[in-house]
């Protein structure tokens, strides 16, 4: 009994083999197309990201030259280069700009990976931490913590472990609610029906939005800060916030990346996944848990930022296909890039040093862009066949 087709003993298989080898050699070069393309895109994104880190540190209302920016960054790395930079400028470039680049990068990557995972698990292109109510849950958990004073003054300094914990608890509670609602609406074998889950997500996020409104109306004086915070912003955040969130992000990303192959198999649906040997229920729970950790941690440091998790995986899917082994890392890179530049725009577009919430910038970029993707998809769905 042969495991593979290599040792054929049936008559006539020699001929079959001979026929097969010609296209096989042809095909041996062809699979390189995808890996080659993803490698090229991956390295391009990585190079962009490295350049972005330096460039984004040079933009802002505090006057700085390119040379000073580079010097400050090099000196922050512990290199002895040139004359010491003015301490205020060093603070601006390293503690403010570089920290925000790092935060925006981490958050953007987390949101994009979480979005890709949610879309994969639920097999719904509109699934996202935003549409599933997970972001809303995290926002509610964190604003409850801030308003009730559990987090208090330490939260603002990024010292309180309790704030991300509350945001994560909120995110997971929201996810639990959504799953419970979706379960109630589906049969035992249907697992998670994609429509049901997204509908449940909309119900839960609407409910949470109402709860947040309730919190706002209870405390009129802090409306402005809640609104600003929910909009999503990196203003006033620094390395200490990154330090708070990265363990959760790392854990979440680990869970999702490790299960990239399972995401591929889950895309085939419940029955096929089981036939291929995947315990779909357990795999989905772990993936959802990981994605919720990612989005909860992102919300804990930046508030709710929409569209990154929706637009980025879609774009990468168009370029590289749906295989998650490529989709996830490429989404992480593009998500980081997108959010870093959105944040640069948010902090430098308005005159007089005022800032826009970065969530507004991503919505302004993401909304029209998403419409474009949708239009392209419906028009050119079959057009891609010609290129293959």
């Amino acid at each position, binding site marked *: *009994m*042969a*495991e*593979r*087709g*290599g040792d*054929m*003993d*049936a008559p006539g*298989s020699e001929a*079959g*083999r001979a026929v*097969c080898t010609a*296209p*096989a050699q042809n*095909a041996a070069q*062809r*699979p390189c*197309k*995808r890996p080659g393309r993803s490698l090229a895109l991956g390295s391009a994104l990585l190079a962009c990201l490295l350049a972005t880190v330096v460039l984004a540190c040079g933009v802002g209302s505090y006057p700085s030259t390119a040379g000073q920016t580079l010097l400050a960054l090099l000196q922050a790395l512990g290199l002895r280069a040139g004359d010491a930079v003015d301490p205020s400028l060093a603070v601006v470039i390293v503690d403010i700009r570089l920290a925000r680049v790092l935060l925006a990068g981490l958050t953007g990557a987390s949101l994009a990976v979480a979005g890709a995972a949610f879309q994969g698990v639920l*097999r719904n292109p509109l699934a996202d931490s935003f549409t599933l109510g997970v972001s809303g849950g995290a926002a509610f958990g964190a604003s409850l913590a801030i308003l009730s004073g559990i987090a208090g003054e330490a939260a603002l300094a990024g010292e309180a472990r309790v704030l991300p914990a509350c945001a994560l608890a909120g995110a997971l509670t929201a996810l639990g609610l959504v799953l419970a609602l979706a379960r109630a609406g589906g*049969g*035992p*074998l249907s697992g998670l029906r994609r429509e049901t889950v997204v509908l449940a997500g909309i119900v839960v996020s609407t409910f949470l939005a109402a709860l947040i409104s309730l919190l706002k109306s209870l405390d009129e004086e802090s409306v402005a800060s809640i609104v600003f915070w929910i909009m999503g912003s990196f203003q006033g955040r620094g390395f200490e916030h990154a330090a708070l969130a990265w363990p959760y992000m790392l854990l979440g990303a680990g869970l999702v990346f*490790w299960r*990239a*192959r*399972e995401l*591929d*198999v889950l*895309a*085939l*649906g419940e*029955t*096929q996944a*089981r*036939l*291929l*040997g*995947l*315990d779909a229920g357990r795999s989905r729970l772990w993936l959802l848990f990981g994605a919720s950790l990612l989005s909860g941690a992102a919300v804990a440091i930046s508030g709710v930022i929409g569209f990154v998790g929706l637009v980025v995986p879609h774009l990468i*899917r168009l370029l590289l*296909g*749906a*295989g998650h*082994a490529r989709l996830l890392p490429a989404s992480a890179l593009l998500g980081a890039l997108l959010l870093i530049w959105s944040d640069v725009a948010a902090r430098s577009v308005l005159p007089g040093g005022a800032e826009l919430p970065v969530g507004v910038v991503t919505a302004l970029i993401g909304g029209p862009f998403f419409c474009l993707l949708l239009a392209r998809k419906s028009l050119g769905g*079959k057009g*891609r*066949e010609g290129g*293959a």
Partner: protein
Amino acid sequence: MIRARGLSCGYAGRAVLRRVDLHLAPGEFVALLGPNGAGKTTLLLALAGALPALDGAVELDGRDMARLSARERARLVSCVPQRAEVPAGFTVRELVRMGRYAHTNFFGGYGPQDDDAAQAALADAHCLDLAERQAAELSGGEQQRVLLARALCQGRRALLLDEATSALDLARRVEAFDLLARQHQRGGTVLAAAHDLNLAALYCTRLVFLKAGRVALDGPTTDIFTEANLRDIYETDIRVAPHPVTGAPQAHLVPGAGAGASL
């Protein structure tokens, strides 16, 4: 190789299969036949482990399937489902390689041996020309060939097929059954649910007829492929004559004898 003992199975607590006993010895090529709604798909899904048993048990290689992990089970049995959703964004090669999921370990990804297995399966199922195409953009028949390739990639010891050739043209259908016959000759166990009685009689050494969730007939093709049996099962007039080349029994319908309306 595969044994069902008193297997009852169904959906939402409603049993479709009732106390089915079936044993497939290693290397058998068996066709699963029967009218619509007889429970063929349910039996295949249950034997492949995609559907839990309500009562009774399935054994693979003498081990209770309920105690095997999903991966262990998938390494023993591969299955081509009847209706398989093919998601957008995957190439045929990627889709076929997913058959190797149960062979990868938790930490590693797909390795060179998985790529080799996919390549061999693509070649055997005559899908190499499709390998770099988008799987979702293929025709129904092409997708069936790809799913067959994926099942080969997953493992060749035991293949369960549910109407796996229904969308193929005649030449492709013969090609597919030739392929299954080759697997059978090399020791693989094959159970193919089909509507095409004649194809089954042409290739399979043993036939199993299901009716209303029970095994109605089970035996060597030559013994049970008789006019009386077929009339009984399908409730219509059927004549049997030998195949002009192989001599295998072949069924022929008689016009105007339909009695299905009374079912």
